[in-house]
């Protein structure tokens, strides 16, 4: 295993320390339980927007803490959902009386831990609402699975709900908005290589030199199918087809297109893929109104990419455009 670390057991704690010293003006980090909180929290009168999940997906979620997006993030161990006390501590640190909205990626561990935390927080009198995001079309949404996973759409959800909360939308309004984003967002990813979790020391799965995994999860969970490597045109078409036909997105739709690197895929390739995605959407009459390209929802050093599409009306676009000031996403301020 080749990594710039000291000890697998302390990777997350040391990285959190680095995050804190890197962004002293925007966030502070508490340890035990580990929580990343915007410096000005609690913000009077504002709904607290909180997310979290396993570490190893950076900048998700800690990189999105700040004005206009998350009030706090709860980083678990690498690829492991955080514990209820982390979530509780996040609620306590950000609660300004307007309640807290928990944005939870749909994985059994995340769901159970956030659920437990929500019960505990409600018991202390803070109104808490949870919204599950399950945008990954690679997984069949049936009783034979744990349901669709939350992947790239999480970023769009955090940005848009964060903007609404910043503008003073109340807890119910934020929860309704979040549900509408979840209803209109779909993603799918592909992996060319496997990530290596520090405490494991070897790749999470084995892919042949000429293979790729279509429909990969962001923890290196296997996806829909293992297929021979193919060129970018074909590969991007696969993702676009699966996503578009799922919702479905139709001619005339306006969308936000998010082209995401899983970490190890360089920008050169990512922009190339983005260009293809834009062309394929244009061919279907789908209008890309906004776009984001970069490594934002990653799986350590895994090579691969994902596409996320969100059907967006004027309100969503306006919230997307609203000022945001976080370590990883910043505009308008």
């Amino acid at each position, binding site marked *: 295993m080749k990594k710039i670390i000291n000890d697998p057991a302390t990777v997350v704690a040391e990285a959190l320390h680095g995050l804190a010293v890197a962004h002293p003006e925007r966030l502070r980090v508490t340890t035990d339980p580990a929580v990343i909180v915007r410096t000005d929290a609690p913000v009077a009168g504002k709904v607290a927007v909180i997310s979290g999940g396993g570490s190893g997906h950076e900048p998700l979620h800690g990189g999105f803490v700040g004005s206009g997006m998350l009030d706090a993030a709860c980083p678990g*161990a*690498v690829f*492991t*959902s955080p514990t209820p006390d982390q979530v509780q501590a996040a609620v306590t640190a950000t609660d300004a009386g307007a309640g807290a909205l928990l944005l939870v990626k749909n994985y*059994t561990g995340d769901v159970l831990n956030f659920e437990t935390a929500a019960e505990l927080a409600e018991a202390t009198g803070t109104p808490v609402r949870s919204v599950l995001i399950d945008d990954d079309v690679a997984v069949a949404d049936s009783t034979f*699975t744990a349901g669709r996973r939350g992947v790239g759409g999480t970023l769009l959800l955090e940005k848009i709900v964060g903007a609404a909360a910043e503008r003073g939308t109340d807890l119910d309004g934020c929860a309704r908005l979040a549900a509408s984003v979840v209803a209109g967002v779909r993603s799918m990813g592909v992996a060319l290589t496997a990530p290596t979790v520090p405490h494991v020391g070897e790749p999470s799965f084995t892919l042949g030199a000429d293979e790729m995994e279509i429909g990969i*999860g962001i923890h290196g*969970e*296997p996806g829909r199918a293992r297929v021979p490597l193919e060129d970018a045109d074909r590969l991007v078409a696969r993702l676009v087809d699966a996503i578009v036909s799922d919702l479905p997105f139709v001619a005339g739709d306006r969308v936000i297109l998010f082209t995401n690197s899983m970490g190890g895929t360089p920008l050169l390739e990512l922009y190339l893929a983005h260009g293809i995605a834009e062309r394929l959407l244009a061919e279907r009459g789908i209008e890309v109104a906004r776009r984001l390209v970069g490594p934002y929802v990653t799986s350590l050093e895994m090579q691969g990419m994902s596409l996320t599409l969100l059907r967006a009306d004027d309100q969503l676009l306006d919230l997307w455009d609203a000022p945001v000031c976080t370590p990883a996403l910043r505009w308008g301020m």
Partner: protein
Amino acid sequence: MACTTEDVVAALRRCAEVISEHRDELVELDREIGDADHGENLNRGFAAVVSAVDSTMPETPGAALKLAATTLISKVGGAAGPLYGTAFLRAATTVGDAAELDAPMVAKVLRAAMDGVVARGKAEQGDKTMVDALHPAVLAAESATEVPVGELLKAAATAASEGAAATVPLVARKGRASYLGERSAGHLDPGARSTELLLGAFAGGQR
């Protein structure tokens, strides 16, 4: 021969030892059909349980089980954290402030633990989860309430072991392994295996 506070604490220590010994195996099982953290998470959690009992010295079996529950909930994360946490919490509630646990009580405790896991995780038998090890263990315990607690626990552990082994051919329908669909068949479920190990540790740490 009933089960005292010291027995429960000793069993918790054996759990930590067994999990630590099998950490890599559980990681590897989870790497095959999950995300390779099950062994690491449980190991972190049970190490913390040992620290907690070292510094707190629980006074009843129930207090020991509750301490284990809250520690697991706050240290493990993932699916297994809340599931095992709930199991220990329900066990503690069932025990109340009894000073010793006899065989019928231990059987009740195991059933409550399993019910807690099912209530949280909504898994049924055959979904290829820890429930597949817990369920036969509970049945075995319930038909061994006439024997000493040690015997009962051994029977439960043996049944858990068989239940775990039986997860190999199954297709997962809950948890992360369910994303694999048919590809999950042919692998031992890591949670079922850890349940087998934990019950083994309670039964005497022989396995």
